[in-house]
C-alpha cells in the first residue's frame, strides 16, 4: 500500500508542476507581446496565451482553473497595452465556453482539433471586439474599431496553434501528466 501510494502520489515538486499551465500562459503572453515587429507591423502578434488556456482547460481543468485564466488574461491586457480588461473578459468567457463543451472539443483530432481551437479563438476575438465596440458605441464621437485587425489576429493565432500546441503537449506529457483520477 505504501509503495503504491508512492507511485501514485506526485513528486515533491507537485506544487511547482501544478503551476506549469499558469506559467505557460504567462510566458505566452510575454512572448506574444514583446514589442518587436519583424515584419514592420504588417501582421499582428498571435494570442499565444490562449493556447495553454485552451489545452489545459480540456485536459487538466484542475490546474487551469477560471482564476488562472483570469490571471493570464490580465497579463495579456497589461502587456498588450490595449484597453484594460478586454482580453481578461475574453479569456474567461472562452474558458467558460470550452469548459461547457469539453467533451466536444476534447474529442477532436487532427485538422478538426485545429478547427476546434480556431472556434475558441474566434469566440475570444469576437468577445474582445464586441467589448471594445460597445465602449466605442457608448462614447460620443468614437468610431467602431475596424474588423480587419482582429481577423488578422485570429488568423495569426490559428496559424501559430500547431507549433504552440506541440510545445504545450510535450510539457504536459513530460512534466504535468494526467490527473490522478484519470490514470
Amino acid at each position: 500500500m505504501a509503495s503504491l501510494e508512492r507511485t501514485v502520489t506526485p513528486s515533491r515538486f507537485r506544487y511547482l508542476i501544478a503551476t506549469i499551465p499558469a506559467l505557460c500562459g504567462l510566458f505566452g503572453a510575454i512572448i506574444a507581446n514583446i514589442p518587436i515587429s519583424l515584419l514592420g507591423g504588417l501582421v499582428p502578434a498571435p494570442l499565444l496565451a490562449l493556447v495553454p488556456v485552451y489545452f489545459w482547460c480540456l485536459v487538466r481543468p484542475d490546474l487551469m482553473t477560471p482564476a488562472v485564466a483570469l490571471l493570464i488574461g490580465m497579463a495579456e491586457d497589461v502587456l498588450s497595452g490595449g484597453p484594460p480588461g478586454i482580453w481578461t473578459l475574453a479569456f474567461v468567457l472562452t474558458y467558460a465556453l470550452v469548459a461547457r463543451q469539453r467533451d466536444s472539443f476534447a474529442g477532436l483530432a487532427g485538422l478538426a482539433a485545429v478547427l476546434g481551437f480556431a472556434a475558441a479563438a474566434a469566440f475570444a476575438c469576437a468577445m474582445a471586439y464586441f467589448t471594445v465596440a460597445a465602449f466605442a458605441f457608448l462614447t460620443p464621437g468614437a468610431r467602431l474599431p475596424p474588423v480587419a485587425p482582429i481577423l488578422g489576429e485570429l488568423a495569426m493565432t490559428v496559424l501559430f496553434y500547431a507549433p504552440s500546441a506541440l510545445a504545450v503537449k510535450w510539457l504536459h506529457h513530460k512534466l504535468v501528466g494526467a490527473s490522478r483520477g484519470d490514470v
Partner: protein
Amino acid sequence: MANAWKIARKSNAQLPLVIVIALAVVLVLLGKAQIGLFDRARAHATDLMAPLLEKVRAPVAGFDRWIGSIGEIFSVYEQNLKLKEENARLRQWRNVAIVLQGRVGRYQALLHAVPDPQMNRVLARVIGRASRPFLQTMILDAGRGNKVLPGQAVMDARGMIGRVYLTGQRTSWVILLTDLNSRIPVTVAPRNVQAMMTGDNTANPVLNLVSHTVTLHAGDQVTSSGDGGLLPAGLPVGTVMPDGAGGWRVALLADAASSQDVEILNFSKPPEAPPATAQLPAEAAGLKPQAPPPPAAAAAPVAAPVKPKPAPVTPAAPASAEDVDR
C-alpha cells in the same frame, strides 16, 4: 490527438466560474474608470523589459530593413536616379527656405510679433513596436527621467508620428496617429481649414472637417493647428488625399514603421490669465472710461446712486516671470 488527451473530469477550482466572469466584467469597468492602475503596471513592465529590448533592437531592425528591401532590389538604379534628382530640387528649396526664414524673422521683429514658444527636444530611440487590433504603438527609450511627459508630440525627420500617452521612468509609449484612439486638431493649408484628424487603425487617418462648406484638394498640406494648447501649431503631419467615398484622409509624412530615432517635443504653453469680470472691452484695450457728467444740484434731492467703481485699468503689462514660466 484525442486519445492522448486524458480528460480530468473534476475541477477543484477555488473560484467558481460565475464569480470569475463577474470579476472580469468589474475589471473591464474599473479599467475604463481608473485606467491609471493598468498604465502604471504597463510602464513598470516596459521599464523592466527596456534593457532586453535595447539589446535585441539592432538585429531586429536589421532584419526588418532586409525584409523591407527585398522588393527594392530590382529598382535600385531607378531609385538612385530619382533620389539624385529629388536631392537637387530639395537643395534649391532649402536655400529658398533659409531666405524666407530670415525674412519672416525680420517681419516678426518689425511687427513686435509674439515669438513662437521655445520647445525643448528630447532625442529618443525606438526600442519597440506593437501592432495590436486595438492599439498601434511604439516604445521609446526616454521616460520621466528625461522629462518626457504624456501628451508631448513625437516627430521623426519627416513629420509627426504621434503623442506620448504613457511614461515610465526610462521608457514611454507613443500612441500613433493611425491608432483608433488618436484625435488631433489640424489645419489644412493654404486656406487654413480647421479639421480633426482621427485614426482608425489604417495607414491613412480620417479627416473630419469642422465646416462642411469648404472644399479640399488632394495634396493640400496638413499641419497641427495647436488648438487646445496640447500640441504646438505648425507641426507637419501629411497631405490630403481622397478616400474614394467622398471623404478625405491624410497621407502621413512620417513612416512610423521604419522610424528609428525620433524627437519628443516638450511643448508647454503658459496659461493665459482670464480678464477680470468687471473689465469692459474698452478698458481692456487701455482706453480710459469717460466720467459721466456731474449731476445738477437741483436734480439731487436724495442721495446720489452708488456708482460701481471701475476696475483699475491694467495696460498690457507682461505677466510675471513665474506666470511665464508656468
